[in-house]
């Protein structure tokens, strides 16, 4: 059998094995590839960071997630929460999905392990699960009064009695609404919260949805976007560089890769806070492999086509 015939008819299971090896090896032995940051991620980081230490500002996080989106979205959850806890930024969390509520609780617990001083209802407030049918009334109601729209936290305590609500009333006190979503990201907040109240909106999405949402960045309806594992890795990197070291955000420093690489040692970072960056090592190797497969497949195709043309001429 000719080489061209062989590569056109190769059993796809061999490709799966090669791909699995290409992913497993960098996970076991990380390559430490540099993480370049992009403007949509830097903008979001900068915007959140501006609320550091402010009593009357909070970040509003919506967890529209299910277990099938965990590999891409969960590192984002951890990175954003870690940023907020490190920089003393108040956080509200909510989910309109039963499974999203469980993921939200898991993310809060996992990040909080590293921050024993961070207290629920003082530094963050988990609104818990709310019915999908209530998402529009709640989103609009927050524009008037969060405590009236949401009423209670996940433990059933009334919001107006919680210390975190002292100087926070409505969207005027929300620094940004972030929807980390595997479904229709950001539309709820773009359509209602931004259109009616002018609140800043950002999204974290699976890579599949990322390209569809760039038009909203262009128009300014989104101030930031975390796209897939890459977006999560970028945000992890910014948190590691600035927030962990207590350095205020600087655009110039954020773009300076060599300066950023001097700020921390990746091997010393807890695995849960570098999951996306390690994953991106594997992603990079797998992408190179896929590009090679595409090139080999196309070379085989064109050689075969040329041979058929020659036969036809003869």
């Amino acid at each position, binding site marked *: 059998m000719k080489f061209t015939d062989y590569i056109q008819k190769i059993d796809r299971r061999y490709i799966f094995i090669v791909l699995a090896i290409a992913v497993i090896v960098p996970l076991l032995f990380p390559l430490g590839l540099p993480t370049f940051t992009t403007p949509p991620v830097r903008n979001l980081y900068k915007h959140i960071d501006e609320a550091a230490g402010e009593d009357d500002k909070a970040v509003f996080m919506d967890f529209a997630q299910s277990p099938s989106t965990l590999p891409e979205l969960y590192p984002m959850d951890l990175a954003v929460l870690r940023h907020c806890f490190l920089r003393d930024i108040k956080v509200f969390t909510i989910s309109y999905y039963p499974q999203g509520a469980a993921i939200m609780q898991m993310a809060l617990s996992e990040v909080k392990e590293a921050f024993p001083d961070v207290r629920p209802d003082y530094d963050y407030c988990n609104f818990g699960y709310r019915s999908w049918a209530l998402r529009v009334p709640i989103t609009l109601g927050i524009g008037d009064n969060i405590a009236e729209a949401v009423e209670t936290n996940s433990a059933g305590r009334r919001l107006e009695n919680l210390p975190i609500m002292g100087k926070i009333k409505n969207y005027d006190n929300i620094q940004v609404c972030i929807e980390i979503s595997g479904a229709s990201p950001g539309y709820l907040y773009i359509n209602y919260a931004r259109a009616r109240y002018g609140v800043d909106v950002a999204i974290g999405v699976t890579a599949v949805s990322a390209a569809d949402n760039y038009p909203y960045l262009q128009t300014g309806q989104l101030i930031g976007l975390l796209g897939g594992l890459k977006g999560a890795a970028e945000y992890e990197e910014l948190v590691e560089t600035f927030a962990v070291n207590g350095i205020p955000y600087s655009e110039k420093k954020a773009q300076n890769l060599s300066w950023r690489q001097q700020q921390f040692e990746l091997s010393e970072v807890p695995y849960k806070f570098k999951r996306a960056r390690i994953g991106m090592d594997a*992603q990079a190797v797998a992408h190179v492999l896929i590009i090679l497969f595409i090139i080999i497949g196309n070379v085989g195709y064109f050689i075969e086509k040329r041979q058929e043309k020659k036969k036809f001429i003869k």
Partner: protein
Amino acid sequence: MMETIGIWLAAFLTLSMFSFLYKDNPFYKFAEHLFIGASLGYGIPYTFFNVFIPYAYNPLFLKHEYILIIPFLIGIGYWFRFSNNLSWLSRYPIAFGLGIVGMGVPMSIHAQILVQMRTMMLPLTNINLILIFIGTVSILLYFFFSKAHKGVYGKFTSIGIWFMMIGFGASFGYTVMARLSLLIGRLQFLLSDWLGLIN
């Protein structure tokens, strides 16, 4: 102990799913059906205790807010979908739901159409805006079928195809990244949580 059992169970189900890459088999079928059943099984009681009890049962039966009987009865209308004779009653909650959808139309038009159009109408002061302008106009004209795509017009509309191809390429590239991320996520779980090979 429970955590260990959970990790082993998750590892078994992950490997069962991966076994489909070799060929269809009973382990894959079992894991697939279990996933669907567990998702539904998890959602139904969760919704019952977090929606029905606090928003319907408690206010109506404990706080005696009888005004809630009206939405309660409208909601019950959905159940008549299962009756051949009374299925028409289910149209009322559907109509009510559509009315709520209608509430979002003006805001959707503003956010999804008007703001997007406004960006199109900005002065062409930089290369991005010029590219957006050319891309949008050429694609719109490509889908205008009342004029034959010939001559200069045809060449201009073919630019629209290039823009679309680049858009599809970007989407496909991101899709590849998404699928690989799922594989990476599962392998990270197997290698770290299950096998403990990654610290």
